């Protein structure tokens, strides 16, 4: 630990305002997601705890506001703040799980393509090329329109668009790693291929993935929000931040802005934090800039 505190990474971290703000925002969200149910009195999914008498209360600083609901309530008397805490859980869960799945599948395919080359390489990379010529949001939208709504389906759609970037990056670094002497030595020593890949190549191609993975969580949160806003993402029983915005949009023209504006602010702060921290990581981990 003292090693880390004295490291160049930590030294730069303390001097970078964007790194500190970014990680503070991420930490705040991690805390809100983990402690959410203990921070609010109301469980927005428990219909018994909702009271229709509390519906459409404005935020506390506006006339008619109720200190019990500082960000106001929606049409069912649901506390907007409680909905955001629970919604952020779903958004962040989807972003993280889809990132881990994309990273695992993409890294595996990239290693295989780079290490073995030949027809396997061509097939994987041509699929990647074709996919990259279309915007992710459109591919995800198309997949969701075919398979229907659901958290599991959103995860599949996001993974289907997310693996490509890892596969390409890992393939590139693998190609340059297998030329190096230590891999050649391992081959001469007679190690089986899977062991060379796992023990020697994999650890050396991971660094660039850290930045991609960080930023991707933010991208996934945004894509999921867009899908849910269009009604082809998560189901109403599991409202993510995007679905909260959609529900709020339906009453926006009656002037009830708080049910949709605050969940959007939450997404913005989450993704902004991730991007700030990701930018810092990119500068730190990119050896070309040093």
């Amino acid at each position, binding site marked *: 630990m003292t090693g880390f505190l004295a490291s160049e990474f930590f030294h730069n971290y303390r001097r970078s305002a*964007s790194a500190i703000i970014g990680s503070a925002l991420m930490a705040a969200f991690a805390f809100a997601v983990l402690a959410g149910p203990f921070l609010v009195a109301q469980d927005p999914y428990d219909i018994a705890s909702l009271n229709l008498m509390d519906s459409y209360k404005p935020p506390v600083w506006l006339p008619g506001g109720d200190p019990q609901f500082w960000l106001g309530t929606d049409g069912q008397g649901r506390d907007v703040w409680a909905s955001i805490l629970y919604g952020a859980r779903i958004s962040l869960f989807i972003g993280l799980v889809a990132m881990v799945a994309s990273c695992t599948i993409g890294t595996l395919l990239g290693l295989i393509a780079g290490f073995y080359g030949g027809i396997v390489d061509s097939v994987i990379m041509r699929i990647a090329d*074709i996919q990259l*010529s*279309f*915007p992710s*949001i*459109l591919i995800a*939208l*198309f*997949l969701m*329109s*075919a*398979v*229907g709504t659901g958290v599991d389906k959103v995860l599949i759609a996001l993974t289907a668009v997310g693996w490509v970037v890892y596969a390409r990056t890992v393939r590139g670094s693998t190609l340059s790693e297998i030329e190096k002497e230590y891999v050649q030595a391992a081959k001469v020593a007679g190690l089986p291929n899977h062991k060379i890949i796992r023990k020697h190549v994999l650890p050396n191609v991971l660094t660039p993935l850290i930045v991609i993975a960080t930023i991707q969580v*933010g991208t996934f949160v*945004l894509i999921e*929000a*867009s899908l849910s*806003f*269009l*009604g*082809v993402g998560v189901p109403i029983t599991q409202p993510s931040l*995007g679905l909260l*915005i959609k529900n*709020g*949009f339906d009453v*926006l*023209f009656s*002037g009830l*802005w708080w049910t*949709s*504006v605050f969940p*959007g602010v939450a*997404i*913005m702060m989450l*993704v*902004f934090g*991730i*991007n*700030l921290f990701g*930018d810092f990581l990119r500068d730190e981990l990119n050896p070309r800039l040093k």
Partner: protein
Amino acid sequence: MLGYLLKRLIQMTLVLWVVSVIVFLMMSFTGDPVFMVVPIDASDAEIAQARRLLGLDDSLPVQYWKFLTSLLQGDFGRSYVFRQPAMTLILERMPATVELVLVAMALAIAVAIPLGVYAGANPQSRISRVIMAGSLLGISLPGFWIGMVLIYLFAVHWGIFPSSGRGDTVEIFGIRLSILTWDGWTHIVLPAVTLSLATMAIILRITRAGMMEVGRQDFMKFARAKGATRGDVLYKHGLKNALIPVVTIFGLQLGDLIAFATITETIFSWPGMGKLLIDSIYRADRPVIVVYLMLVALIFVVINFLVDVIYMLIDPRIRLK
């Protein structure tokens, strides 16, 4: 050059073919379109009849073959909802989308390039930091949410701009355009701003990075030394050389704008082909979805091709194999 063009043409055809297979497979494994065309109280015989008419009782390869041949013959099927050729429906709405995308792109470029040049030329200044933080915020915002906030402020609260539709249009060569009427402009402002923000942020960041890269080069020092004005150094010598990555991104961004237009059009009820796609997804109107996807795939493939060619023209050092 000719060999390269030919190779790219074959590649493009291959991509479109793969897309047609994927679209076909996804569509045939989801839902049963027969219930879209028969009345609710249809008898089993009527359902079987409709199934035969739609060709749904053929085997998958036969269905795909029919699908492909009719696509190639320009027969794209009829919408289940509108009972009109799907292609006509989409082509009717395409000008609205193209108009929105182009206005958004023009707006993004007009704002992003000068700000990016400034931020790249003065990386340490306070204004540059604000610009960069703003651009990071721009890519962190859900676009649809910005659209909603704009609707609330400018349409509901202040009532300056309308919140939906295209407004008055003028017909030119059979294409209806909003940007030629004042009313059309007031309608396009909010959706175009909404759509342009993300692209603006990305072009800004690329321009800045390019300018910082170019700023270290000798020819920039030389231009300064020979006494060129600051503006000339930045724009004539610097920007011209920093533009190459911007052009590549420009193509990708055009694709992204078309994709995100689906969401923007839905929020602002802009009657373009993106809104038609979303409506068709809700109604399971399969022929329209298929035509939209194939058409957009064609557009993307052509854009990518053009970007590569332009890339080659502005930088002859790039040898295309």
